[in-house]
């Protein structure tokens, strides 16, 4: 292959390039497959941390769509006029759940004055890093609002992403963890102990937008497909909420 010839570039651009938060791997991959079955070139999707993807967009990487794990990085690009504002909208929503290893007997109802610290025993609470990962930020916000944060603030096991936290619970290395409902659903070795009330944290949303420099019409077409009833149904099968 001769990657640098203009012809090759033009050819490759027939399939849209989508940059997406790593936690969307299964669901968005399935959506791309479905889209391809409709006779379209299968979108090329790069799954990575939202921060890395946003910086790549800023550096001029040639891509068509961006799906962020939180609004902050989408805002970052919007401020720099790197996305088309009219194409931006919240594609998916999610819920925050408390999980325990599948065999764990722990019972706890989520609400004000919940005894989270006691339920942890001598163990740690697995979460995505509240200082950097969206899932962790939501968890901190929810626990703070429910008054449970002081009990656990110094007893966190902070994962690099929400799946790392999930793995700690699945392996039984942490007695409890806070992850997205979609993650809990995909991991048979964990059990959902309870779901955090939506009012306890800012809405969890995955914004989608078309990038300013996208010239590939397939990008817009795929974006529209993602908003279609068919795609929404597909995302709901993975546990996401849609609007």
């Amino acid at each position: 292959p001769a990657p640098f010839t203009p012809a090759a570039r033009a050819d490759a651009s027939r399939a849209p390039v989508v940059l997406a938060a790593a936690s969307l791997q299964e669901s968005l991959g399935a959506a791309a497959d479905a889209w391809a079955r409709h006779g379209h070139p299968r979108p090329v999707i790069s799954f990575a941390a939202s921060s890395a993807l946003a910086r790549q967009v800023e550096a001029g990487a040639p891509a068509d769509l961006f799906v962020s794990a939180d609004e902050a990085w989408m805002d970052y690009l919007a401020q720099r006029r790197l996305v088309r504002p009219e194409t931006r909208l919240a594609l998916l929503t999610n819920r925050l759940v408390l999980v325990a290893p599948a065999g764990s007997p722990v019972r706890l109802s989520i609400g004000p004055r919940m005894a989270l610290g006691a339920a942890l025993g001598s163990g740690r609470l697995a979460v995505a890093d509240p200082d950097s990962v969206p899932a962790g930020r939501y968890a901190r916000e929810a626990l703070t609002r429910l008054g449970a944060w002081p009990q656990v603030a110094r007893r966190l096991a902070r994962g690099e992403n929400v799946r790392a936290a999930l793995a700690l619970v699945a392996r039984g290395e942490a007695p409890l963890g806070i992850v997205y409902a979609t993650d809990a659903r995909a991991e048979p070795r964990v059990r959902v102990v309870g779901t955090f009330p939506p009012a306890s944290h800012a809405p969890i949303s995955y914004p989608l937008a078309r990038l300013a420099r996208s010239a590939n019409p397939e990008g817009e077409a795929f974006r529209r497909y993602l908003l279609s009833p068919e795609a929404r149904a597909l995302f709901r099968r993975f546990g996401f909420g849609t609007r």
Partner: protein
Amino acid sequence: MLTAGEWQIVALSLKVSAVAVGLTLPLAFALAWVLARARLPGKVLLDAAVHLPLVVPPVVTGWLLLLAFGANGPIGGWLERVLGVTVLFRWTGAALASAVMALPLMVRAIRLSLEAVDPRLEAAARTLGAGPWRAFATITLPLALPGVLAGLVLGFARSLGEFGATITFVSNIPGETQTLPLAIYAALQMPGGESTVARLAGISVLLSLVALVASEMLARRSGKGAHVL
């Protein structure tokens, strides 16, 4: 055994690592030579600069590469304007990231071997009619071969395992920048992806084993015997 997609990943990884290590070798050698032999002020700073990709977390290295080689970056902008080339989202960028990460390992290994070469042998070659370059090529270079081979193996292994700088710099694009570690990472993100992880990691290990055996055979063939009489 492997799916077509997985074969593609393996082929890409090999290409990226081979190009990374092959292109870095001359630079690594030159740096090793300067660090081992040249007298110049501030050598320690050059030494430190070579070590940077080791000290700084890989994602930071990737981010710095992105700043430099992005379309608006000093190097990337120039490449795009003058050559019409971009390494962003391309396998060439992945090779660049791997090369940067492998560089310190290669330099150190080569430098260690260069420092062990007895300069009296080069002097002998000079009296026999060899100019400085020829003495270098026929005496110093082959005597430093163990270090060069060690550098190649270390660099190749490091390239095969490079993840953070690559995904940060050139993203995770199947068929273009998704090397073995990125595919492994992706599998690791999926509940139940452990078997894929194990299979892909096994392939990485196999590839590096082949490189290792090849280098050992080369070293043996060249007769080692680096001792001075």
